[in-house]
């Protein structure tokens, strides 16, 4: 781990809509293995990634059950990132933009993320060694 390094990542894509989501989560995973502090600012549709009520589903076309389909959910992936942070000793600060949360009714999240605002993103950037802003298409 690179001691003392802070990385901020801003994401905007809603879950399941873009390959960018997987790339962003892979970046955050890699960052938790290198940096001491990783701040994620989830903006717009990305605030839905941590919704507690996400559920996997069966696939009637393929005839698979929920268990067989093993459909991943972004909330579980992000819970995994928090677990990784505990393992590596890094700090993961996942901030969902409050106004975006309110618009989308995405207030009930898994444990770990917190509500914030663009001001939190600005403050995190000021403290960061690196910043990656991942826009939507």
């Amino acid at each position, binding site marked *: 781990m690179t001691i003392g390094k802070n990385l901020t990542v801003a994401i905007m894509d809603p879950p399941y809509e873009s*390959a960018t989501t997987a*790339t962003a989560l*892979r*970046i955050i995973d*890699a960052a938790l293995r*290198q*940096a001491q502090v990783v701040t994620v600012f989830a903006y717009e549709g990305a605030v839905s990634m941590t919704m507690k009520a996400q559920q996997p589903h069966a696939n009637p076309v393929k005839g698979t059950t929920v268990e067989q389909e093993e459909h991943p959910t972004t909330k579980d992936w992000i819970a995994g990132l928090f677990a990784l942070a505990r393992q590596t000793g890094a700090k993961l600060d996942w901030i969902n933009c409050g106004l975006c949360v309110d618009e989308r009714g995405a207030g009930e999240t898994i444990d770990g993320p917190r509500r914030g605002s663009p001001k939190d993103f600005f403050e995190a950037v000021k403290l960061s060694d690196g910043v990656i*802003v991942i826009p939507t298409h």
Partner: protein
Amino acid sequence: MARFVFVESRDPYECADCARFLDLVGGVRRRSHEVTLFLVQNAVLAAREGASHAGGYSDLARAGVAVVADAFALRERAVDRLASGIEPSGIDRLVSLALTPQTRVIWH
């Protein structure tokens, strides 16, 4: 001299302004800055050896841009052979680059 990492996520077969993005990358390099072009997602489609749009990436490599393709994205898309000047790498390299002092990351 500054450091820039340009991340290209789109492929030129689908996106008309990818060429303009590469122009930007080349322009920054011509100003003698240290430049990396990191290809992710469908941008790696044009990194395939023989691809009609691969020349843009190879030209940048010849101009001194470090052109890197996400190995995960390459495997997903069965891109086995890369055009000249492009090297595969893990996504951890993008994080390392972003954490390098005085580095700006621009994502397309």
